[in-house]
């Protein structure tokens, strides 16, 4: 016998929206998860961790999905609302990861450029990487949200 009261629903929703957030400080493993986000935002590229942009950036992006970096990524309103809630609940609060005006590109943030300033320019455009947004070319476990140094293999 399972009893499910209506009062538990809001808590369940909050829990789902925030995912199982456990960012190990300094380790750069982002484990927040949401099934809709993973499928919808992982269809054309890997699902970029919500922690890597501030809430303001996600909010703007989610209202312009029909013109998303030159592609139509539009969603039905219900799915978009669920994903927006998840992205904003887990968005970057850390100053380091979310400074400057709300950029739509993780790779355009000052944080990203600083973190990657040791990567030689020719590597970014090499056949194995092609563009900075292709995180998994170097962060071999990026699909699982793991950007730690342990799993880093920069192609030469």
């Amino acid at each position, binding site marked *: 016998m399972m009893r499910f009261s209506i009062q538990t629903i809001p808590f369940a929703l909050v829990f789902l929206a925030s995912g199982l957030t456990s960012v190990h400080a300094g380790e750069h493993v982002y484990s927040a998860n949401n099934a809709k986000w993973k499928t919808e935002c992982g269809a054309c*590229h890997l699902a970029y961790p919500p922690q890597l942009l501030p809430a303001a950036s996600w909010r703007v992006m989610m209202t312009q999905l029909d013109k998303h970096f030159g592609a*139509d990524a*539009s969603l039905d309103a219900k799915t978009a609302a669920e994903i927006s809630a998840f992205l904003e609940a887990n968005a970057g609060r850390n100053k380091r990861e979310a400074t400057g005006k709300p950029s739509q590109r993780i790779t355009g943030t000052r944080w990203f450029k600083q973190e990657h300033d040791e990567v030689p320019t020719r590597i970014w455009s090499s056949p194995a990487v*092609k563009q900075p947004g292709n995180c998994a070319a170097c962060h071999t476990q990026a699909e699982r949200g793991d950007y730690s140094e342990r799993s880093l293999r920069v192609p030469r």
Partner: protein
Amino acid sequence: MKHLSHKLIILLALAATGLAQPVFALTAADTLRQLEQSAKQTDPNFKGVSVQRGERLFKATHGAEWSCASCHTENPGASGKHAKTGKLIAPLAPAANAERFTRPDKVEKWFRRNCNDVLSRACTASEQGDVLAYLMTIKN
């Protein structure tokens, strides 16, 4: 008769797998039939789908940078690659990928997005039927 036996096989298969599949899942053939239905309803001149038209729509560019083949390749029986991000895309032809054209909301979503990117407009039901008819001729 042919339809009936088809349905029966699906039912038996569902029973055998203990309803492992959602009951509302369609086959690609079901999806094609639905597209033909709505083409008939919206276009009085509709005279059936065409594999040739579908292939032409799929492989040509239509005034924008991409064709369907830019991401799904000239051979939709093989894996594709997103033209901008490089991400791998599973084959589009149902013979090579049994999940294709089985979920109406997914089919609707990607036709909407991709036709918009390639033709700068929505594809009609008959155009969608043409493309699916073409994809169903691809053998794995």
